[in-house]
């Protein structure tokens, strides 16, 4: 197993290198957003543009710029480690902005994951166990609604109702947990729930389907015949087996969310990396785009590795060499 993990970690590095290389080269063939010209302002002289290009490091050949970027990532630059350069737009170190924003996205992603698992899986189990009942039909209808409702609409509705009308929620924005735990929690509850509703619905439907299928297996019948309590049959034998696909999905979804839930971040004014990535692309802020690319690629590949390891733990039939 350890050999497998080490091999996978090496592949993580390879994948991240390939993705950043693609991003780097795409940046230079994209539609013309020339950061040097943008930054040089109105009526710049050719000398001014050249000077800005030099300061941004854009005067070097593309392959040399990429090499320098890789070197700085591993060894650091004048702003510290990892060396991610400075933002063309804000003129501040990308590393500082990244660390500031990544905690917002982590808060959002993990919090939402906890909420959607806490809602989705129990509902899925109950629906499966009480298949065909009014409860089952009601919850699945609700799940269908939340799967269909766009996140931006849910977010705006939640803000309108809970903040604007009922004054229950403190509204948009992010309060760092180091500044105030209560402030952090009160500001995150609505984004968590809004983001989680979509996933909870999906996970409820998936858990229900998997559990129904699992409960029809021979070994479940055997467990019942052997006199095991129904709760044990369902939770220990049924749910455990039906959750393995769910584990895979959690990893993928969490990995994707750690790349930034752009719409949720924008609606709730959470300045995470998703929204930063979109703005940076439009503004031609290459260092910021690369920083986000590294983070997202790492998040997705590492989450996939964690999922595979957990999968092996859950399902004894799976063994890695």
């Amino acid at each position, binding site marked *: 197993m350890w050999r497998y993990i080490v091999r996978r970690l090496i592949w993580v590095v390879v994948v991240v290198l390939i993705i950043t290389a693609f991003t780097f080269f795409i940046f230079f063939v994209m*539609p*013309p*957003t*020339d950061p040097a*010209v*943008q*930054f*040089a*302002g*109105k*009526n*710049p*002289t*050719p*000398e*001014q*543009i050249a*000077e*800005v290009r030099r*300061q941004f490091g854009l005067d070097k050949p593309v392959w040399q710029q990429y090499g320098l970027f890789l070197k700085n990532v591993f060894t650091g630059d004048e702003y510290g480690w990892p060396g991610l350069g400075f933002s063309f*737009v*804000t*003129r*501040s170190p990308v590393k500082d*902005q990244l660390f500031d924003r990544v905690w917002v996205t982590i808060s959002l992603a993990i919090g939402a994951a906890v909420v959607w698992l806490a809602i989705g899986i129990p509902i899925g189990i109950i629906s499966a166990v009480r298949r065909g009942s009014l409860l089952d039909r009601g919850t699945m209808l609700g799940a269908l609604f939340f799967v269909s409702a766009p996140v931006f609409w849910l977010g*705006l509705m939640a*803000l*309108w109702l809970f*903040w*604007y009308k009922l004054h229950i929620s403190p*509204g*948009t*924005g992010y309060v760092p947990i180091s500044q105030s735990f209560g402030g952090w929690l009160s500001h995150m509850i609505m984004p968590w729930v809004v983001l989680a509703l979509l996933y909870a619905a999906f996970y409820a439907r998936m858990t229900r389907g998997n559990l129904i299928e699992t409960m029809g297996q021979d070994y479940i019948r055997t467990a019942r015949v052997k006199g095991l309590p129904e709760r044990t049959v369902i939770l220990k034998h049924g749910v455990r087996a039906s959750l393995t696909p769910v584990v895979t999905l959690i990893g993928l979804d969490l990995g994707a969310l750690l790349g930034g839930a752009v719409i949720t*971040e*924008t*609606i*709730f*004014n959470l*300045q995470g990396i998703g*929204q*930063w990535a979109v*703005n940076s692309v*439009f*503004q*031609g802020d290459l260092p910021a785009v690369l920083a986000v690319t590294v983070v997202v690629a790492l998040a997705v590949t590492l989450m996939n590795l964690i999922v595979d390891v957990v999968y092996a733990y859950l399902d004894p039939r799976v063994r890695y060499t």
Partner: protein
Amino acid sequence: MGKRRQRLRLVGLALAVAMVAAACGGGDEGGGAPAAPAAAKGGVLRTATTDFGFTNGFDVTGEYLGSAFTMYGALVRTLVTYKHIAGPPGNVLYGDLATEVPQPTDNGLTYTYKLKPNVKFAPPLDRAVTSKDIAYAFQRINTQPLAAQYAVYYIGLIEGLDGKAKSAATPVSGIQTPDDQTIVFKLTRASGDFNYRLAMPATGAIPEEVAKCHTKAGDYGRFLIASGPYMIQGSDQLDVSSCDAQKPISGFDPSKKLYLVRNPNYDQSTDTTRTNYVDGIKFDIDTNLDDIFNKVQAGSLDSSFTDDAPPTVLQKYATDATLKNQIHSNNGDRTWYITMNWATPPFDDLNVRKAVNQVMDKQGMLQAWGGTVAGDIATHIMPPDVVGGKLGADYNPYASEGNRGDEAKAKEFMKQSKYDTDKDGVCDAAACSNLVMINRNVAPWTNMEPVVVSSLEKIGIKVKARELASSAAYTTIQTVKNMVPIALNAGWGKDYPDASSFAVPLFMKDAIIPTGNTNYALLGLDQAKAGELGIKFPAGVQVPNVDTDINACQELTEADQRNTCFADLDKKLMEQAAPWVPYLWNKVVVITNPSVTKYEFDQFSTEMSITEMAVSNKETMS
């Protein structure tokens, strides 16, 4: 006796109730709405924007954004400035650091300013501003690595200022500081708008002991030391003992906030141009545009800032009697226009350009912007206030019924063009088809697009719109080699209240540069210039050149004469060059909460005037 006492008590009670009712009733027919509180000092002005959009990291040497100018109006004192109020009175210059606005001497080649004593920098510097701080600001403008974005206003005009210095320590020979209270500028030529150029924020006092540590473009923004009535919150904590010790000021995070607090060293008696009602100003970033306007209505913000209100919000405020006085609309001194390239067919023919002007449905374009609340239909190039009212909307060389465009008249122009071979008023040459039209990919530009496309089709010009993000759209049309024939994305606002800030960068031959070009129409292009730029010069075409006209206007020093001269230039451009189709003189719309007891607009920055606004909230800057 008991009953009598009871009756007396009842009468007394009735009288008391009557008195209270009278006090509450007021005298108004409609009943007791309380009068708005008078503007008073105190409180915090709270606003938000989706993105600061700074063009140079808020470094005053290079920053070229109108909203930054309104912030600098509170932070940085220049030799001369405006009163940061609306309309023509907001375009009048007064002494700020200088005791007065001087007249030039030496045939317009020398300007001498005397500084007011005891104007101090904010903590931690706590020292008086001197003439050397102004001279240092110009040294920074002259320093190439600092990318001063409007250095073009000073390069070649002030002796010794060529924009090529490698370091800000290099003095400019044409700027002399014989003593701490005197600064003298020597010019290479007379320029009647020189005082206006000295009101630009880049020329404000900059302390060398702090700024010398920031040698890259955009770096100084997070370390800015104020000389104005406000300072960035936390700037008093800046450790200026060494360059390494300086850490970014806590009150400014380019992606989150900019908070201003009162400068304890500011002396109101030295300043006749600012009132400074509020104790602090909070600019926060809020990525949700609707949320900003919801917060304004709910009262957790006092006003919107730079973001245009969504049409639904505008409609709500415009149609609700209780909200109408919270919507503020002022002239933005900006023209939005369609630009046409003189070097690309069919726009190398003046008749085609006139036909396009004549056929354009400007009313439809205005509706796409949201109607009259967005502004007024532009009938010529420079907004009326920019030419001192010398040329208003009544001058409309391509007038049509209801500003809907006049197809018949447009066809008459087209018939005279070489591109209409059968003279039916519709272009039938291949050059009129498949033309790329650059546009922005957001409303209202996308809303305008069908109006423009269908207007052009009436005279046989068929365009394919290419929608890009704003910065990409500008970069595309600013790169001359792209030879973009027609573009819908562009607008131009005055830099200072003199028409030269339109004429010089937009229509002079020397303003044509390979990248970052703003003379999109390429007026003044000739064979030699085309060769320098690496583009093909259209055969047999005489591209209009108005350099002589502009230079003649520039030499005038009296404002009225300058305005008349530039107004005449505007007419000449519209009739003999038709560089654009101007379609909108925009209005800047800001929505406030009733907590704003005094709203004011800064005509210079064309944003709200933060030193002249008052609020009723009792917040403090913690």
